[in-house]
Every structure is written in structure tokens, then in C-alpha cells.
């Protein structure tokens, strides 16, 4: 069989090694075209692998490749995809290719810039595709360094502070991945994720709690979860548009992906303990970040906070312990990847013309830039979960999942749903205020120069159009997308729920939120398991 995944991961990384030998003389044209072609080829490979070899009726790991790499410590090159990975691999290929196209205006050291972009391309796909804990850690770290450099060299005025904050946060978080990985190796006797998940029955409750907690810290930084989020506004506030697209579009999703794959997949009993906490954090994310976003006067930071707010739904979806909630969490990650990338791209495009990110200084640019206005409005509508676009379906699924979850007491469910629904009111307040301040009213001639307000060029319209096609496509007919991961998420949820229902672990005060009849249901309606 063709080693699809290895090729997909290695093509951009190997291509990156070629970049330093290309000429920078023509303003980086050669490099840009080269990178774009590599990006497109790799995306085509991903799509080809998906179309020819991915079976969405199966919940198991597919396209698996395992080669021993360093046998003494059990390290092996092990890749594979299932419903959790495949959509995110597709998303990564799509967004990164678009980000390369969005990097066209980069003039400062293009050779280095595109080298880093291509390394990230491979690194990010690697994170989603590898099935070995150690390898996962390596890829996780591999993608940090390019981001650090991209922030530190091409960022805004506060770039060094932001880059340092980013690297410290994530590096401290990733120590936990390493430690938990080693601990898992000792307990399960394997570094392979599928084997670890299969051996999870052996893990004691306390071990699970410790590991879950450790990984949660690592992924809370990435997702991000309150109160580990403060690196994100700084990093997003300073990044250039393409880096921005990658940060919001893909890097945040690594946290959510790893939460599902490892925390839920490896530690089902600990999930019972942590699920209400995840939900609580999700609610805090939604409301707190929406409020801070509303008060934020800096455009990039405003959207950055809105990302945090949207990620809250992922947590609630995971915590709901239902298939539809889990699907909603997954779909929210894909959807936010697309919407976040498009919004950040548009913010960059607007900044290129207004040269200010301060909302009070803007206003009235719609007359001069109707296309940017139209695209910005559409993407903001998508972000505030307008039906017909992907965000709505994802949030609806999370809402339905949470409110129909049989795990929790009625009071808890009602409280969570009501609080999360406050986000439904807050989101349009800050997004529409933002649109109003940027586009409506009259032009601020003191700061903005009218002749610099050129409307969107075809490249920009094309990028947004590419992003809007899946956003609207998912919104109109979500089943096409949810089918990619439905089997895997269903199997994962059912396996987890089954373990939770048969477990008898001390939950302390957290047991209050669980419906007392939840455990007895396991006997009554034992769900037939696939796999």
C-alpha cells in the first residue's frame, strides 16, 4: 500500500529544505510560487488519500504505517488516521495552503519565512497523524519553534514579549506531555496510542486522574482554556495574517484533538471526574472571553478573544458525554478553523490598508472597500453562528448534546445550557459592534488615508471564497462532514460512557451534578459496541 501519511508529512518538510537554496532576488517570487505549489501538491495528496483509502464507515485506525525507529526505547514511526484525525488533517492542508497564498505580501526575509511555513505544514499534519506518544511529543515541539520565530521576526511592535510568552507557556505545558507519556509507557508497556487506549482498563483511578490533569494543563494552554489563555491575545495581537490563520485555524485545534484522543480515549474513568470541570471551564471560556472581547479596542485582540470564546463549545461538547455533543465539539473545531482563519485573514487585509488596529480610529471604510466589507460581514455572521453556516450547526449540536445528556441532573444541564446560551447574545454584540466601528459611519480622515483604501484584490477574494465554500457547505448540509468522523466519535463516546457507567469511583462533590440513575441505566440499555 502507498505510504500516504508518511509522504504527506515529509513532502513539505523535505521541500522546506530546498527553500534556502532558492533565489530571493525577485522579491521572493520564486520561493512563494515554490511553496504554494508544494502546499497544493500536499493538499492534493491529502485529498487523494482521503478519497481513495479512507473508509468513513469504520471507526478504527486507518492508513496505518508502523516502522521501528529506535527499538531500545520503543520509538517507532507510527502514523494513522481515524475520524478524529482525518478531518483535522484535511483542515490543516487546506488552511496552510491558503496561508501560503495569504503570505504573498511578505517581503522581509521570504526565504526564511516560507521555510518555516513549510516546516510547520509537515509538523502540524504530523501532530494529527502520528500514533506514537513520543513521536507526538516530538511533532508537538517541532511546530513550536517555527511559530516562535514567525512571531519574533515578523510580528508587530510587542513581538518579542508575545513570542517569549508563547514559547514559555507551551513549553511548560508540553513537559506534562512528556512526563505522562513516559508514565503511560511504564504502565501500558507501549507508546502506541491505540495500544494505550486498549490497555486503559489497567490504569488505576488515581493514575488516570494525575495523567488527565497533567495532559489537561498541556492542552489547556493550547486550546486555550481559562485561565491559561493569556498568551493567545498577545500572540494573536502581534502575528502577521498568515501566521494568525495558522494559529487560530490549526494550532488551537491541537488542544481539542489531543483532549479527545488522549484524555477521553485513555482515561475514561478520569473523564467522569473531569467532565463537569471541562463543562464549567467551557462556560467560563464562552462568557468571560466574550466579555473581554467586547471591551477590547484592538481589532486583532478582539478576534483573538472571540476564538477563546468559541473554543468553550468544544469543551462543553466533550464534557456532555453524548455522541452528538462530541460530534458538535469536533465540528466546532473544524468550523472555527475555517471561520477563524478567514476572520484573521480579513483583519490582516484591513490592517494593510488602514495601518491601525485601534477600533475607535477606524470607521466608514465600507464606501471605499465594499468587497472587504461584504466578506467581513459574511465571516462575522459565520462566527456569530448564523444558521446556514458551519458555526451554527456545531453550536446547535453541542447545545442539543448537553441538554439531552442523560449523565447529568436536570439542574446542572439547565444551568449550563442557559449560561452557554448567553454567549448567543454576547457574540453578536461584540462582532456587530466591531463591524459598525470599522465599516459604518464616516471616515476618520485623521488616521486613515483615503487613497490607501483599495478594495480587495482577486487573490484576497479567492482566499475568502475558498474558506466560505466549506463554511456554507457545512452549514447547509452538515451530514457530509459529520459522516467523516461520526463513526469514530460515536465509538469513542460509547466506550467512554460504558466505562463510566460501570465504574464506581469516588467523585466527591462532583457526584452532585451526575444523575443518580445514570449508572443503573448501563444495565438496562447496554449499548452494543462496535469494534
Amino acid at each position, binding site marked *: 500500500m502507498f505510504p500516504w501519511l508518511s509522504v504527506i508529512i515529509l513532502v513539505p518538510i523535505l521541500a522546506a529544505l530546498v527553500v534556502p537554496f532558492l533565489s530571493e532576488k525577485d522579491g521572493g517570487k520564486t520561493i512563494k510560487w515554490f511553496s504554494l505549489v508544494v502546499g497544493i501538491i500536499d493538499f492534493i495528496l491529502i485529498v487523494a488519500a482521503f478519497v481513495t483509502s479512507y473508509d468513513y464507515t469504520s471507526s478504527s485506525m486507518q492508513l496505518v504505517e508502523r516502522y521501528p525507529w529506535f527499538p531500545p526505547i520503543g520509538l517507532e514511526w507510527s502514523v494513522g488516521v481515524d475520524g478524529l484525525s482525518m478531518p483535522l488533517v484535511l483542515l490543516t492542508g487546506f488552511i496552510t495552503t491558503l496561508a501560503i497564498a495569504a503570505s504573498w505580501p511578505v517581503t522581509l526575509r521570504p526565504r526564511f519565512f516560507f521555510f518555516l511555513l513549510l516546516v510547520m505544514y509537515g509538523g502540524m499534519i504530523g501532530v494529527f497523524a502520528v500514533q506514537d506518544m513520543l513521536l507526538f511529543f516530538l511533532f508537538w515541539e517541532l511546530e513550536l519553534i517555527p511559530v516562535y520565530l514567525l512571531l519574533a521576526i515578523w510580528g508587530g511592535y510587542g513581538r518579542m514579549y508575545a513570542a517569549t510568552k508563547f514559547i514559555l507557556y507551551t513549553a511548560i505545558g508540553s513537559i506534562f506531555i512528556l512526563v505522562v507519556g513516559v508514565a503511560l509507557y511504564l504502565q501500558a508497556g507501549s507508546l502506541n496510542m491505540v495500544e494505550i487506549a486498549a490497555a486503559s482498563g489497567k490504569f488505576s483511578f488515581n493514575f488516570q486522574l494525575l495523567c488527565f490533569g497533567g495532559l489537561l494543563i498541556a492542552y489547556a494552554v493550547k486550546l486555550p482554556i481559562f485561565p491559561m489563555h493569556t498568551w493567545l491575545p498577545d500572540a494573536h495581537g502581534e502575528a502577521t495574517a498568515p501566521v494568525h490563520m495558522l494559529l487560530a485555524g490549526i494550532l488551537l485545534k491541537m488542544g481539542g484533538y489531543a483532549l479527545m484522543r488522549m484524555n477521553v480515549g485513555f482515561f475514561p474513568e478520569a473523564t467522569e471526574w473531569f467532565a463537569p470541570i471541562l463543562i464549567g471551564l467551557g462556560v467560563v471560556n464562552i462568557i468571560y472571553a466574550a466579555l473581554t472581547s467586547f471591551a477590547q479596542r484592538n481589532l486583532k485582540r478582539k478576534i483573538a478573544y472571540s476564538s477563546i470564546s468559541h473554543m468553550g463549545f468544544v469543551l462543553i461538547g466533550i464534557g456532555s458525554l453524548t455522541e452528538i455533543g462530541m460530534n458538535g465539539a469536533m465540528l466546532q473545531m473544524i468550523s472555527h478553523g475555517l471561520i477563524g482563519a478567514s476572520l484573521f485573514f480579513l483583519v490582516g487585509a484591513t490592517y494593510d490598508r488602514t495601518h491601525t488596529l485601534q477600533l475607535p480610529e477606524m470607521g466608514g471604510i465600507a464606501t471605499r472597500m465594499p468587497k472587504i466589507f461584504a466578506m467581513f460581514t459574511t465571516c462575522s455572521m459565520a462566527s456569530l453562528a448564523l444558521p446556514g453556516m458551519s458555526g451554527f450547526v456545531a453550536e446547535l449540536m453541542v447545545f442539543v448534546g448537553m441538554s439531552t445528556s442523560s449523565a447529568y441532573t436536570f439542574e446542572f444541564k439547565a444551568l449550563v445550557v442557559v449560561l452557554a446560551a448567553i454567549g448567543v447574545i454576547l457574540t453578536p454584540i*461584540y462582532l456587530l459592534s466591531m463591524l459598525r466601528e470599522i465599516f459604518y459611519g464616516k471616515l476618520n480622515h485623521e488616521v486613515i488615508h483615503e487613497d490607501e483604501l483599495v478594495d480587495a484584490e482577486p487573490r484576497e477574494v479567492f482566499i475568502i471564497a475558498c474558506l466560505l465554500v466549506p463554511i456554507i457547505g457545512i452549514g447547509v448540509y452538515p451530514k457530509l462532514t459529520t459522516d467523516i468522523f461520526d463513526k469514530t466519535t460515536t465509538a469513542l463516546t460509547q466506550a467512554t460512557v460504558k466505562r463510566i457507567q460501570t465504574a464506581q469511583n469516588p467523585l466527591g462533590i462532583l457526584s452532585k451534578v451526575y444523575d443518580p440513575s445514570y449508572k443503573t441505566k448501563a444495565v438496562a440499555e447496554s449499548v452494543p459496541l462496535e469494534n
Partner: protein
Amino acid sequence: MELAYQAAWLIPVLPLMAALIIGLGILCFKGWTAQHRLWAAGLSIGTIALAFALSTLIFFTSFWSKREPFTKLFTWAQAGNFTIDVGYTVDNLGALMLFVVTAVAFLVMVYSHGYMEHDPGYVRFFAYLSLFSSSMLGLVLSPNLIQVYIFWELVGMCSYLLIGFWFSKKAAADAAQKAFVVNRVGDFGLLLGILGLFLVTQSFDFSVIAERLEQLYEVAKGASPEGMGLAADVVKFVQANPQLALGLATVVCLLAFMGPMAKSAQFPLHVWLPDAMEGPTPISALIHAATMVAAGVFLVARMFSIFEALPTVMTCIAWTGSITGVVGATIALTQMDIKKGLAYSTISQLGYMIMAMGLGAYTAAIFHLMTHAFFKAMLFLGSGSVIHSMEGVLGHENAKESQDMRLMGGLKHYMPVTSKTFLIGCLAISGIFPLSGFWSKDAILGEAFTKGILEGFEPSAAALWLIGVITAGMTAFYMFRMYFLTFEGEFRGNNPEVFSMVKAELSSAQDDQEEVTAHAEPAYGPGAMEVTELEQGHQHHDHHHEPHESPWSMTMPLAILAVPSIFAGLIGLPWMNWFGAAIHAPGHEEAHKFILSELAIVAGSSTVISLAGIALAYYLYILRPELPGQIAQSIKPLYQFSKQKWYMDDLYEWIFVRGSRALAQTALTTDKKVIDGAVNLSGFGAILAGEGLKYFESGRTQFYVLVFFGAIIPLVILFGLL
């Protein structure tokens, strides 16, 4: 006619195609589209005409043949065994709404061709109109609550886009955002209501929800849950706490009702509708009078059998409607802006419909919805025609003044078609025999009278009837006040004294004026003007000195709408209720029996009070025009209370706008100072640690490795032991 039903999905899809094609045209081939703008308008009007033809066919088939509702569904989203279906359904109510929406939309589009003729956003306007029509028609065809919610939000978005159509106008931008956010508050409730209903009944389908709720009430009363569709844990809960279950059901239904409250501008969520008049006038007619705002009433009708079983909910609905009716009418009494006056009148009339729903008068509410759609659309289009003409006199830079009735007067001499149709509208809305409004309003009041007095005295319904009658009197008064001020008497638009007085008052109310004139080239459209004026450009002083009648594309829709405004009532005569036979609440086959004496009392009392209102308006505004000012002076607090819209906007500004801003600011400060502060503090800690640790830096690698392993090994051992 099966084919027409099969093809019903085309009705929303046709305008959607038009919107998509025009939208792509604007984005990709801007210049070409701008040159071929008549094609764009033609495409919009053509598709809606086709949709109208199909809707008419379905409407008549459905009303005559009394067939079962036609439904088609497919799976839209899936997770495990859980599915959400979407599709379309056509029943009598849906068929009626299709007919009304497509008819009004078609006429408004024709009208818009004249009204927006010289607006730079002409093509965009038609794209939005088509998009709105499509969403509204999709809403009408929705078979379940999820799909209703989807289109509910989409019409809200179209409303947002259209209110903010002239985006360089600050007032328009504010109004658009206000409309969206207030509607989102309603949607918050609606979403929670939908989720709550789903939690109890495991369904989004209207009839299934109603049926299972009915079963739930039976169980609460002690019936056996055998053979019912309720989930086991729900049954258990209900059996354990029957009272609590009923209370929760009430809460859920009231939450769901918040959606209609916001969309149909019911007190206290009505504040967005008057501001929405910042949009172009055809929009006010189509969206903010005839169709979208009626969607709330439509949804209450769809959920009627869900609400009906809970008396508390029905009472709340009825009183919400009734209070809204009074609030709207009292504010409309003093408004000087012709569109604002009509907007408050719309609020008041929507209150009537909601009140009727709450009283269980399903047929009457929908009947009034239909007649109101026709005559209110006509009134708004008429006001647009007036504004068009006034802008010709006052100049387009005086958009606000052109809507002020103090500058109008005597227009009937200049605008015969507009003034006659406006008069018909005023008569219809005042409920004068035999115009359409008479029959529909009488149907509502008759129902309240029957419930409150004829079938034994019931204080709540009797009070509702009384309030309804008083509101009818106020309606007649303010509508004829509007008519007399606008069309009778002398034309005051050329009077510089009045003009400067009005201008001073308006600019003290808002700094919008300077905003507009400061712009060298007004980006928002001239709205409406004569073709010949185009060549004259924006020279402000080069306008007519006399008002003029609008072009045929604007007067023709007025004339056409006059026909149903007069005659539509005849299909629902109390003694030959063809309408009631086709449109009735699920499970209520027969409308109540016709009693001549009852008709005489109800119709008599409301007609008398309406005539009194008209007479008073005639006395105050024709015979003694100096009196209104004196009266306003003598009851200044009351007058200001009405004129300042019960101070609702100021109240909301203080509580919600400033409150949420302060809260958000607090959150941001916390984020910066507390959370980020802790991070920076730990950074400081790291520096201290580094200072201390540097004495360990001996440069010997072995020592580093030792420290590293010294740290890792205990951790590994700890994990290994667990």
C-alpha cells in the same frame, strides 16, 4: 395539483438563486452588473413573480380541496442514532403565508424599482430583497422547530443588512445592530425553549411535541404512561413531581415565546422596530410591517397546540399582546415622523394579533395578520411615496425633515393616488365598515367579548376586550391625525419658519445632520428622486418647490394593494367564514357560531369608538389646528412620556448598554491585571530563581545531567507506583 406541492420547494429556492446570481455579479463583475442593473431587478422581480404564481396555485388548491398537509423530509445532521431532519411542509396556514409574502414581496420589489431608481446600491438592494424573500418563504415552509430557528435567524440577518443598507449613516448602523441584538435576546429564549421542549418530548416536530406534552399533562394528572411516546425518565420525573413538571413546562413555553416577542416587536422587546425605520421605506413595508414581524405571530400559530394546553402561558401571551397594543398606540399618538408613527402602529397591531392568539382566537389572529399585511404594506409604501415627494421639495440632505409631518400638509392636491390609497389604509386600520380591517379586528374583539362576557363573566378576557376597544379608538385617532397632517390643509414644506423650527428640533435630537452634509458625496442613496434630477446632481437648492405624484412603478403597487385592503375582509365574514373553514387551530374544526346580536354589540362599540377617534382627529387637526399644541403644553409630562416612547430607550441605554459595557470592561481589566499579572509575577519569580540558580552553573555537563535525572526519576517513580 399534486405537482404544485411537489414543487413547493422552488418557492424559496427561486429568489435564493436570484440573490446568489446578483450577489456573485456584484462581487465578481462589479462594473458589468452596475451597467445591467435592470437585469438584476428583472431577475429578482421575475423569480418572485414565479414564486407568487406557484404560491397562488397552492393557496387556492389548498383552500378549496382541504387536503392533508404535504410534508417532505430528509436527514440533515446525524450523530450515532440521533438525527435532525429538515424539509418542507405545506398546510393551509403555510399556503396562506406563502401567498401573502410573495404577493407583498412582488409589489414591494416593483415599487423599489421606482423608489431606489437612483441609489448607488440599487443592485445590492435587490439582492438583499431576494435573499430576504427566500428566507421568509423558507421559514413559512419549515416543518419543525429547528428549521424554523434556522430561517428565523436568516430573516433576522436580512433585516440587519437592510436596516443598515445606507451604511454611512450612523443612525442606520446603530439601528441595524440594535435590531439584531434585541432579536438575539429573543432567540436566546427561543433556543432554550426549543431545547427544553426537545428534552421533554425528544422531538422538534410541532405536532409530536404537542401530542407528547398532552400526554405529559395526563401523566401528571395520574394517567398511566402505557403506550405513550414519552421517555422513561421523563415519565418518572413527572410522576414524582407533577406540579414542578407543569411549572417547568410553562417556563419552557414562555422561553420559546420570547422568540416571537422579539420578532413581532412585543413589549418590552419592541424597541428595535421603530429604529428599524432607518432602512429604506420599501423595507419598512415588506419586512418591518407586512412579513417578517408577522413571523412571530406565525410561529405562535405553529406552536399553538403546544401553548394552548397551558392556561398560564396563554394568559401571558394575551396580556403581552394587549400591553403592546396600548404601548404602541399611546406612543403613536404624538410621533411627528410619519414612518415612526406607522412603526408604532405596526407594534400596536401586532399586539392585537398576539393578544388574539393568547385568547385562543387562532383564526382571528391569522385573519388580522393577513389583512394587516396588505393595508400596512400599502400605508408604508404610501408614506414612502410621500417622503419621495417631500425630498423633492426639501432636498435629499434633509432626509429626516422630509419625514416630518409638520412640514407636510395639503398633499392630496399634489398626490391623488397616494392620498386616496393612504385614506383607504387609514379607514381599513381603523376598522371602518366594510373594509378588511373591520372584519379582522371585529373577529378579535368578538372573540374576547365572547370569552369575557357572553360565556359568563371572566375578568381577564373582559379587560382584554375593553383595552382592545380603547386601543381601537386610539388607532383611529392617530391614523387620521397622520392623514390630516399629511394630506389635508395647507402645504407647509415651503414655509421657512416651520422648516427651521423642525430642523432645530431634529438636530438637537441627534447630530445626524452634520454627519450627512459633511460628506462631500453622500454615500447612502438619495433614496428617491425624479429621474430628471439625476442630471442636476446633488445641488441642494435645485429642487422642486411643489410636491409631485410618484412614478407609476410606485403608485401601481399602491393601487393594487388597495384592492385587498378593501375586500380581503369579505372572505372571513362572520356568517360565511370561508377563511375560518380553511384556517383554524389544529383540533378546532369549527369557529364559534355566528350570533347577530353579538356582532352588533362588538362591531357597534368598536365602530363607534373608532368614529369618535376620527372625529376627534378631525376636530383637532382640521377645525382647531391650534389646539393640539396647547393641549400638549397643558399635559406636558404625559405628552413627553408618549413622545419619548415611555423612556424605554433611555432606560435600556442605562441598564443594558452601559451595564454590559461596564461588565465587559471589568472582565478585560481582570484579564490584564489579575490573570496576566499572575503570569508576569511568575516570570519575575523565574528571574529570582535564575539569580539563585546561577551559582549552580558550574559549566560541568555531568552536573546538569545529574540534576535532570534527579528531577525526572522521582516523577517517573511516582507515576510507576500508582
